[in-house]
């Protein structure tokens, strides 16, 4: 039995669809969602990329068998668009009701007549249908292998909502460990957190904080990615890292050979983070990945998370993060601290950044905010010897400042964003804008949202990767 399908849609598209389906006339309306797809261990995820609204009386007309149906011309037009764009076709209509919904027999008969052919037209689909009530959605999905169940719809915005065909059973979830925090978001909120799968790229100063806090919060599954090992210079800020982890008694010897052995046997940062997480929550599923997100096989482990944190300084990782967020409709946040040092080593500016990135235009795309400098990508793709030859490295001994208390400022806001988004506690008017804290001035400011229609990540143009899932390549190294 195949795993049921899930659908993810961003809040902007969802609101467009919802206003069309429920304008207040209590009548039936129709539309089509064009969606990408991502195959994952938790089952296939359909990813809504575009919504085509069917005009009442023109595209959505009285049916021969049912009450209403999409016109043949409308279906042909959108289906050929989906085939051309390699997207899935999902017909949508609404029924009355509030918290539960199901297809009628006439609906199912119509799917059986039409969808096998539509699967062929759209090069294998999937194709299918969704029926909405005000707070519920049911689905019937078809592929070359036949008919598949539909589990739920997730709407990604400043609040992440989930809609099911009927209300799920109230969780019998009560754990005294979480008593105090559950008084904020309830047992239901705690249950939601326990079902989340969260990715963290970079388990250094910022990422190790996130990892511990999320574990204590009761997140059920963490996928932590870092290829780096603990070094004695990390002990001031990587949570729980010890001199033993860093093999300090070898790494700090003068003998280069002993130093090398110390570095070789130092513990991986992801293993330290897993140790901390397991202590905080022995039931957590913790995938400690010794890998680089620039490798496609590693990046793909993050394409099924519910939220993704980027806590790495590399601009190449930033590009991959931004791509995963938009390509797989996964909300995320980039965190970091920056200390600008002027001539003569004088400290100029100390800033901390928390940058939520939601997968729609204006959602905080790092490309649109010019936070992925093209020149840095080029420089980081060079080998160390190429960088030296091209004089990008003036002095290898110069290392950027990094301080745990600064990391706390950016990581704390990002972890809080995740908690508030998934437990639905943010006020409706909240905009998750990028926030920059200026530590020396003790001020904090929001960055005005930016978006470019032609952006290759968040844009709506034909070349953008948004919601295309597995059907476009991530900007990773080619497998050798």
């Amino acid at each position, binding site marked *: 039995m195949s795993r049921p399908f899930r659908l993810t849609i961003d809040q902007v598209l969802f609101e467009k669809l919802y206003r069309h389906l429920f304008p207040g006339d209590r009548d039936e309306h129709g539309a089509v969602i064009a969606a990408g797809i991502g195959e994952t261990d938790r089952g296939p995820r359909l990813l809504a990329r575009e919504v085509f609204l069917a005009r009442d009386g023109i595209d959505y007309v009285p049916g021969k068998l049912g009450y209403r149906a999409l016109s043949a011309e409308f279906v042909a037009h959108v289906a050929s668009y989906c085939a051309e764009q390699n997207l899935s076709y999902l017909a949508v209509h609404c029924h009355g009701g509030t918290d539960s919904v199901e297809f009628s027999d006439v609906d199912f008969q119509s799917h059986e007549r039409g969808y096998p052919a539509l699967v062929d037209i759209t090069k294998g689909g999937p194709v299918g249908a969704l029926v909405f009530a005000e707070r519920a959605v049911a689905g019937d999905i078809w592929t070359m292998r036949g008919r598949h169940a539909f589990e739920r719809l997730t709407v990604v915005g400043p609040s992440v909502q989930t809609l099911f065909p009927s209300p799920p059973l109230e969780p019998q979830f009560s754990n005294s460990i979480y008593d105090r925090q559950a008084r904020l978001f309830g047992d239901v909120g705690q249950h939601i957190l326990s079902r989340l799968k969260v990715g963290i790229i970079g388990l250094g100063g910022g990422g190790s904080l996130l990892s511990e806090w999320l574990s204590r919060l009761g997140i059920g599954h963490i996928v932590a990615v870092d290829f780096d090992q603990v070094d004695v210079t990390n002990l001031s800020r990587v949570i729980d890292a010890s001199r033993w982890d860093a093999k300090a008694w070898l790494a700090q010897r003068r003998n280069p050979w002993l130093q090398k052995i110390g570095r070789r046997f130092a513990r991986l940062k992801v293993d330290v983070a897993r140790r901390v997480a397991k202590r905080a929550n022995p039931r957590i599923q913790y995938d400690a990945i010794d890998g680089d997100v620039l490798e496609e096989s590693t990046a793909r482990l993050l394409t099924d998370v519910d939220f993704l944190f980027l806590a790495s300084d590399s601009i190449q990782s930033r590009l991959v993060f931004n791509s995963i967020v938009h390509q797989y409709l996964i909300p995320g946040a980039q965190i970091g601290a920056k200390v600008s040092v002027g001539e003569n080593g004088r400290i100029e500016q100390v800033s901390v950044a928390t940058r939520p990135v939601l997968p729609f235009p204006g959602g905080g795309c790092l490309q649109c905010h010019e936070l992925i400098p093209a*020149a840095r990508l*080029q420089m980081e793709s060079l080998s160390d010897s190429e960088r030296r030859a091209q004089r990008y490295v003036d002095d290898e001994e110069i290392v950027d400042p990094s301080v745990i208390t600064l990391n706390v400022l950016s990581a704390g806001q990002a972890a809080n964003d995740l908690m508030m988004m998934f437990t639905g506690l943010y006020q409706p008017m909240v905009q998750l804008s990028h926030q920059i804290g200026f530590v020396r001035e003790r001020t904090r400011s929001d960055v005005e949202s930016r978006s470019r229609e032609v952006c290759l990540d968040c844009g709506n143009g034909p070349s953008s990767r948004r919601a295309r899932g597995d059907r476009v390549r991530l900007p990773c190294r080619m497998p050798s």
Partner: protein
Amino acid sequence: MTSEVEKAIAEIRHAFAGRMVEAEDEPQGGAYVIVDGVSIGAAYAPSVTWFGFLISFQYPHADVYPHFIDPQVKRVDGGSLASGFSGPTDWRGRPVIQVSRRSNRWDPTVDTAVAKLLKVIEWVKEQ
């Protein structure tokens, strides 16, 4: 190499039809490219050189720079090369002059490796 890098090389071959364009795989999915027989104007001797550069695996998001030219290139008037030139240095085991023209406003939806090469050639001619 990635499909985006392959496309960039095809555009370069098209723009420099009749001249030798060599492209060698870079292990991460990019390509090392050399375009031979490029005229850089009478202010230089030799006045025709090759241009070499790396197209990164993260192209078109990544800029294409620096470019490298024949280390023999000198100004005919005996003057020193402009400030964007440096070297001789080493590129892939051969001595080269580095031409550093970084695009601070690189836009992956518009900028291409071939357009960048043409701009760099034009810049060299203007010095």
